[in-house]
């Protein structure tokens, strides 16, 4: 298929390679598996140049600094940012969003201002704004969604009071890809800043911050082959430079007196303390891995697999798939009548299939759908149609198991 050799790709993942009956891993929206090259980049750092960055005047520290900064540069390039210092390393997308909520929102929002988000956000793009609204007196508003997981009349909700518009580029429940570029343009026309939560989008499609023109972009490294414990915030240079610091500590200061301090240049200003060095270097290796295959090819491959999965799943009687059936990323939430999603997940686990069940950190969506939980299968570049077949079979088996006397 389109010279996309999935077996060759799978061979590079120790969780699958050389295993007799490898796990069918369909929980990629939570975190992905890691290729050997990423694991090796981490091990190599620990075994060959394990040292702190930025302040050591010795060879392994300079090497560590170089690799750490080079990862930053490659990530910047991956999202089309023309300035690598626009990238701040974080633990994940959650910390990236909170960084903006603390260092930008709490210093720029006032009573009467509006923070606009959508009903399809992950809790990580809801709670930080609830807390920021509480602390600043700003009002939190939501663009509603319909049952297909599509935003309804978004433009009506953006107005001159909107100071910040925070939106997910791709839903972790419906797989909906939102028109973030168009909405950013509208929001900007009202003078609002725009934060795009790319945690789910970036693993699967080309994200270009210059094209989107967003002010902030939240990135989850571990959801795109990188080690756990790493993500990033992109922000426009001038905003980062004006922003107040977030965490205080080593690395982020220039001069400290007893009473006050001046801040380092960006991005160090936002990276207080010893950073997640090995993880950032691993993130760089993950981006290399994706680049070698090509994000467009990944998108096409996943698109075909998703369409296949939706067609196959739809054949199961009692199957309810949420969201738009045709236009979506590789994440499918569903319920099977008579089978609770947690029982389903448990029974699939016995068939060596890992899916997720629950509210997927998106309780407002669950309330909209009027269900307590859904099952969710999410794919990545190493999944196969054969795995989709196995999933469907196992669902039938679970149905039968729970229904039989």
């Amino acid at each position: 298929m389109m010279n996309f050799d999935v077996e060759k790709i799978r061979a590079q993942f120790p969780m699958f390679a050389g295993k007799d009956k490898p796990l069918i891993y369909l929980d990629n929206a939570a975190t992905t598996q890691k290729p050997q090259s990423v694991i090796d980049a981490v091990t190599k750092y620990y075994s060959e140049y394990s040292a702190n960055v930025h302040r050591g005047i010795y060879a392994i520290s300079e090497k560590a600094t170089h690799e750490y900064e080079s990862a930053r540069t490659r990530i910047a390039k991956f999202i089309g940012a023309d300035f690598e210092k626009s990238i701040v390393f974080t633990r994940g997308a959650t910390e990236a969003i909170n960084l903006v909520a603390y260092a930008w929102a709490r210093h720029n929002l006032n009573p009467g201002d509006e923070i606009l988000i959508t009903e399809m956000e992950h809790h990580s793009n809801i709670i930080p704004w609830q807390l920021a609204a509480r602390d600043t007196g700003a009002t939190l508003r939501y663009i509603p969604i319909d049952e297909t997981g599509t935003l309804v009349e978004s433009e009506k909700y953006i107005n001159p009071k909107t100071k910040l518009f925070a939106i997910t580029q791709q839903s972790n429940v419906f797989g909906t890809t939102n028109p973030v570029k168009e909405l950013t343009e509208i929001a900007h026309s009202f003078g609002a800043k725009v934060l795009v939560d790319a945690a789910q989008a970036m693993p699967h499609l080309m994200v270009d911050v210059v094209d989107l023109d967003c002010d902030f972009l939240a990135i989850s490294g571990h959801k795109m082959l990188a080690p756990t414990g790493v993500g990033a915030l992109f922000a426009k240079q001038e905003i980062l430079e004006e922003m107040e610091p977030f965490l205080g500590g080593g690395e982020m200061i220039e001069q400290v007196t007893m009473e006050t301090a001046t801040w380092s240049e960006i991005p160090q200003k936002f990276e207080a303390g010893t950073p997640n060095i090995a993880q950032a270097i691993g993130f760089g290796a993950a981006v290399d891995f994706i680049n070698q295959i090509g994000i467009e090819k990944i998108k096409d491959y996943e698109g075909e697999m998703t369409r296949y999965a939706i067609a196959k799943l739809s054949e199961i009687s009692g199957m309810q798939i949420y969201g738009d059936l045709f236009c979506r990323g590789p994440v499918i939430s569903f319920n099977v009548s008579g089978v609770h999603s947690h029982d389903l997940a448990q029974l699939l686990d016995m068939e060596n299939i890992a899916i997720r069940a629950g509210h997927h950190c998106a309780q407002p969506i669950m309330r909209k759908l009027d269900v307590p939980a859904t099952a969710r299968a999410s794919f990545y570049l190493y999944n196969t149609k054969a795995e989709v077949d196995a999933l469907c079979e196992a669902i039938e088996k679970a149905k039968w198991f729970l229904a039989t006397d």
Partner: protein
Amino acid sequence: MSEIQQLYQQLILEHNRNPKNFKEIEHADCKLEGYNPLCGDQITIFLKLENDVISDIGFQGKGCAISKASASIMTTMLKGKTKAEAAEIFNKFHKMVTDGTIGENVGKLEVLAGVHKFPSRVKCAILAWHTTMKALDEIKAEDGKR
């Protein structure tokens, strides 16, 4: 029996399909909602007491097979018991689903012993029980006020 078969025993599947006392009780002495934050499932317990004895008990709500079966079995076991007896049964049950100990006279509850091997499902099994114990406490508190 495999672990999964221990978890989903025949009796559990039956109670899941045809839960006992799956009903609302009008004029209940206490009606209490329980919530499992791990999954979002919700259960409502209805209780009627006569002189310290549970004269009627029912439940409603959505939940997984484990939670429904556990609630169903619970209602059959607690009907006619005093508060103190109920608390005692609950303690045995709690111990069983958390560490696997099958105490004396657990009776039909034994089918839920397999849960202790699945830490993420312990809350499912306990949900109805916790809610009921809380409901009994509330009735007690109100009694105190009278």
